[in-house]
């Protein structure tokens, strides 16, 4: 027996009604998606369309099935996630005095194969390939156990989309890393929400608030003098985008300079051309290798490997005697360390 064929009008009707019903059933999720768009006319239109949809869905309790499914699967319903991240200060300071009296850096102990150094790598999609390369380099070192947590399309401007400070607060006590490597910024050249109002990217108010968020995250990470290596954004193919990343790097560099436990790692000498500009190919012993992906933004494996080698050398310098070692204090043999295989976190 064959499936029955239908008139075209029937097909159009089913498609349209199915999409309308699905959007009512998932109205909260659609509203959240709209709210998470970069500030601009697309977001305004999206919110304007989805807000009444969400109201109808909520009034008719059409959002309940989706909520129940989410709960059954242990997921945050879209509305609940919005409530959790949508209000309040997205990046509250760790302590009132954190920014004014930053902790003195405590160099990590000398790690061993039995007690490897616990390294935590965090960031956006720029941290994906680079972080994976750093995990590989850590494995090869034999004395560093790395955990990688990257989240695509995230940053510090939009905690309503992904709340990095909350993530750090959640994960820091469990992981108890001895060193943290952070790489943010690729998604941050956009407006942010401050006291319920959108602040356009690049304005003085934006710079002040963004710098505050960067500083607050640094403070949170460096509690107890934990060393943090903050990796800058490399040059990008698009001149205007590259310029925006340079602006952010100025903020990262300035905030890092205010905190002795934070080391600013400039990726431009590693991934840029001789003049610090964009180049997709880099010279190497095996000839010129493609260091960037086709989008002109992200790193290729070769680019990630090259940046990882530099960052791992800076991490080694934290415990090995040498001119780059911060603080000048002797490295200590630590009490922590679970040993075993390095871990690689999963993207969520």
């Amino acid at each position: 027996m064959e499936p029955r064929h239908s008139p075209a009008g029937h097909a159009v009707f089913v498609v349209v009604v199915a999409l309308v019903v699905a959007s009512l059933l998932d109205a909260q999720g659609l509203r959240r998606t709209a709210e998470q768009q970069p500030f601009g006319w697309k977001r305004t239109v999206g919110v304007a369309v989805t807000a009444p949809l969400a109201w109808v869905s909520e009034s008719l309790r059409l959002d309940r099935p989706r909520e129940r499914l989410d709960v059954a699967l242990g997921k945050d319903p879209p509305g609940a996630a919005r409530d959790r991240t949508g209000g309040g200060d997205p990046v509250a300071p760790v302590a009132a005095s954190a920014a004014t009296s930053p902790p003195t850096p405590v160099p990590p102990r000398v790690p061993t194969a039995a007690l490897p150094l616990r390294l935590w790598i965090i960031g956006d999609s720029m941290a994906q390939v680079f972080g994976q390369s750093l995990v590989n380099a850590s494995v090869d070192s034999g004395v560093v156990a790395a955990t990688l947590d990257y989240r695509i399309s995230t940053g510090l401007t939009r905690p309503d989309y992904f709340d990095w400070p909350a993530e750090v607060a959640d994960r820091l006590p469990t992981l108890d890393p001895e060193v943290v490597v952070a790489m943010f910024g690729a998604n941050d050249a956009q407006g942010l929400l401050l006291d319920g109002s959108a602040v356009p990217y690049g304005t003085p108010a934006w710079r002040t608030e963004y710098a505050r968020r960067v500083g607050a995250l640094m403070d949170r990470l460096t509690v107890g003098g934990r060393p943090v290596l903050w990796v800058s954004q490399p040059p990008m193919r698009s001149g205007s985008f590259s310029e925006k990343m340079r602006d952010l790097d100025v903020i990262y560099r300035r905030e890092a300079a205010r905190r002795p436990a934070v080391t600013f790692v400039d990726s431009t000498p590693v991934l840029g051309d001789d003049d610090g500009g964009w180049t997709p190919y880099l010279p190497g012993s095996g000839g010129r290798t493609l260091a960037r992906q086709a989008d002109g933004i992200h790193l290729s494996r070769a680019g990630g490997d090259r940046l990882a080698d530099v960052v791992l050398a800076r991490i080694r310098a934290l415990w090995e005697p040498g001119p780059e070692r911060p603080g000048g204090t002797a490295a200590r043999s630590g009490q922590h360390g679970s040993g075993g295989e390095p871990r690689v976190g999963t993207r969520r």
Partner: protein
Amino acid sequence: MLFPTVTFALFFPPVLLAAWLLAPRPLRWKLFLLAASYVFYAWWNWRFCFLLAGSTVMNQVFAVALALRRDRADPTIRYVRWAAVAANLAVLGWFKYYGFFVTSVATTLRDLGVDVSPQLVQVALPVGISFFTFQALSYVIDVGRDVLDPAPLLDVAVYLSFFPHLVAGPIVRAAEFLPQLRRRPDPTRVDSSTAFWLITKGLFKKVVIASYLSTALVDSVFATPRAHSAPQVLAGIYGYAIQIYADFSGYTDIAIGLALLLGIRFPENFDRPYVAASLQEFWRRWHMTLSRWLRDYLYIPLGGNRRGTRRTYVNLMLTMLLGGLWHGAAWTFVVWGGIHGIGLAVERRYGHVRAPKWVQQLVTFHIVCLAWVFFRAETFTGARDVLWRLATGWTGDLRVDRVVVLTIVAALAVQFVPREAGRRALVVFSHLAPAAQAAALASGLVVIDVLGPAGVAPFIYFRF
């Protein structure tokens, strides 16, 4: 514009409605389909619309030139045919293989002691170029072979740009597509139930299965194999076998379903490939439209199996090596093709050796998985690390996430379910009232959204 996005959900219904309203007027109908397809393509990068249009015009010029010479029995037709093939491959070569070719030559010369520093530029790869180039080649070659007559330019433009198959296939041949444009779809008989089933199945495969396996294990294993134990690596390899099947066949299902709703029928592209008991059977079940293309436009023109045993092996290897290179500009893809080529040659040589079917299926699946390691790894070093870790990593944390294992086992088990099993449900669905069908479809969409991870990565085959 990705299929499983809100943007596409907003794009498709008005296109579907307008396409059927305009269907009685062929010129307007085709112009509308063309415009919608170019909007779809421009969503990625509008500049590449000029490339697509240029390719269309160029191939139409070649097709007309071939037809004129064909009708006059002009012996120069072969030169025109070669020029058409060369021109298409030159465009593909520039966009897809320029960097690969230049760096490979420079490295080889350096190994020979000749130091060269070529000027390298990073050429942006237009999405779908491999697919529409192969479709264009099928058009001009078939015209040259007298299988087809040149179609009107508008028909060729719609054929090459038709959005359901534009960016990742299936590779629909001109001879399969153009007659449907001439006939026009019948608005009283749309196979909408099959279309809804395919679209829902495709979304589930992509959004739930492929995305989950990729984020839960596969990406991590292939990026950092040295940080995983052997059981995790093994699960990562099996997981990739499922992921790429779910990703690509999911896209194909959606594409075939969307085309069906618009009244156009595409050829089948996948048929439970992991039940194959030989590599030959695998290629009759995996990316069937590419297999048929390679057979008809490469393997047979090379001589196929008509020029002796040794030449048959050479033809098989060449076809599979070039098939590998079609997927991507990297030597790892060539090795992937080489493994399949060697496997096919060995099967042809020792095909008479019999073993229980399940043994043959097991061996075939694992050869395919071995080849997938090279397909997925970014470099030879990466592939070597994966295989080395698989051989040596039997200490440390051997645990594998249970949900990952369950997903892989379930996805493999489904391959063994007879195709007819879902037929009865489809027939029942097709007899439901439209409102009930819409409610079922809406529920399916929401369940898929709930089960899938946040964000959907682009389809793997977009980069090919």
